[in-house]
């Protein structure tokens, strides 16, 4: 982590950040003192409380931003617990080697996203608590359509793909509300592209397992028999900002390529409907 960079990014978004943090010199000194005293894992929290001093209660948009970040946090809770639960099954679920390593990498990122978002939200107010999840998709019954998700490797990968693709679409769907959001917007974008890398990899894992999917989303094809249609709704769009992408400007661009070239967003309502069955009411 480059904390000098973090200060730099915030300074660009908010030129007065150092006034808020007293002076540059004392801010850095304060920070140097902090990082000298505490373990690295605790640094995001310390950072959060430092920014609370800077921003606490000054932004009228805080509530909107906090709501969006808590929304993102809920999705990250879902993904983080999904992967830690899967990893806990060991080789009974995930083959040792490349597959296990990849799932561990993804799991580490999702857990880091939870910690990062919690630290970012804390100075603004209440941090969303982690729901009780039901990864069977049974709204708490444990007997939903994906009840074998932690015993069937193909089903696990299918649900993982759906969560990752949905995550990508969820961040995108709220991006407009964070326009001109400076450093927070950048952080959201930096998470968003990581989710897309995960999605692409899970899709490649499924392909290696014999499923006909690509790293990118073709039309609204999921390669999953049923139950995840809502996560791919609208991905077959071939028009961007009223411009038709198929054969655009006389180029030979197929409908498949046109849909693959642009990932679509999902609204908050769509996402909540998708993840609803995975949360115990």
């Amino acid at each position, binding site marked *: *982590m*480059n904390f*000098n*960079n973090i*200060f*730099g990014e915030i300074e*660009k*978004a908010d030129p007065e950040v150092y006034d808020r943090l007293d002076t*540059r010199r004392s801010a850095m000194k304060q920070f140097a003192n902090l990082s000298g005293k505490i373990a*690295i894992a605790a640094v*995001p929290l310390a950072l959060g409380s430092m920014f609370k001093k800077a921003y606490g209660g000054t932004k009228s948009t805080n509530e909107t931003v906090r709501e969006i970040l808590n929304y993102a946090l809920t999705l990250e809770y879902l993904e983080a617990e999904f992967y830690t639960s899967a990893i806990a099954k060991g080789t009974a679920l995930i083959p040792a080697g*490349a597959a296990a390593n*990849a799932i561990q990498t*993804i799991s*580490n*990122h*999702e857990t*880091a*996203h939870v910690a*990062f978002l919690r630290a970012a939200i804390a100075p603004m107010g209440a941090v969303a608590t982690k729901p009780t999840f039901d990864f069977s998709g049974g709204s708490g019954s444990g007997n939903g359509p994906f009840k074998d998700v932690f015993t069937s490797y193909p089903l696990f990968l299918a649900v993982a793909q759906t969560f990752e693709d949905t995550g990508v679409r969820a961040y*995108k769907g709220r*991006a*407009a*509300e964070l*326009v*001109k959001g400076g450093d927070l*917007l*950048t*952080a959201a*974008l*930096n*998470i*968003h*592209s*990581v989710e*897309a*890398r*995960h*999605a*692409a*990899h899970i899709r*490649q894992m499924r392909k290696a397992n014999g499923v006909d999917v*690509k*790293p*990118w989303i073709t039309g609204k094809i999921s390669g999953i028999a049923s139950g995840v249609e809502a996560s791919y709704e609208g991905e077959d769009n071939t028009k*961007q*900002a009223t*411009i038709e*992408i198929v054969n*655009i*400007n006389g*180029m030979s*661009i197929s409908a498949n*390529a*046109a849909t693959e*070239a*642009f*990932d*679509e*967003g999902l609204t908050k309502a769509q996402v909540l409907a998708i993840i609803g069955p995975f949360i115990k009411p």
Partner: protein
Amino acid sequence: MSKRSSQDDMIVSKKAVISNFSRRKFIGYAGAATGLMAGLAACKKDDVPDNKDGVDLGSGDIGILNYAYALEQLEAAFYIKVIASPYTGITAEETASLTEIRDHEIAHREFFKKALDTKAISALEVNFSSINFTSRDSVLGTAKAFEDLGVSAYNGAGKLLTDPNYLVLAGKIVSVEARHAAYIRNKITNGSFADSTVIDMNGLDKSRTPPEVLAIAGAFISTKINASNLPTS
């Protein structure tokens, strides 16, 4: 620094740019820097594309869209050449996937061209003399650098946009670039789709400013680009 002869040079250059960027911040905050870092900065300063006589990307949101258009031109030109002259030993699967990526990049390029209409910059001339198109390592190494660069460019440009519609469009493209990056990285080393060279301890991808990106991309673009009117915050 205007001519680079190998892929390695590009990677070294990229590191230098990043070091320089961090270094300037460090000086700003701590008021101190080492001689080595100052040397890197002096070396890289000339690479910042502020050529007043070059192709002017423009200002505001239009400038950022032209900046994206420039990067998509570079990526599309690269994959067109990859498919036109495939590397030795390319597999059927690689040909299929790289052809799809080519078409995605052409779609992005043409989208910006059409959306920008009369405000679009002209077609840029590329310089791929440092790439060995017969070598899988050279082609995939360059593809990886371009895709990671593209992701960081869109991530860094998001906060410079003021129109939410443009931000959403950039978002629709950046995740596809990230999917490309993951695919290419896995082709080089399976499992490197999101390794610690691009993702930090907070699980965040990289973002770069337009000058940082153009300093790296500039090695592959012969046309002079004037990015001096782009927004910086």
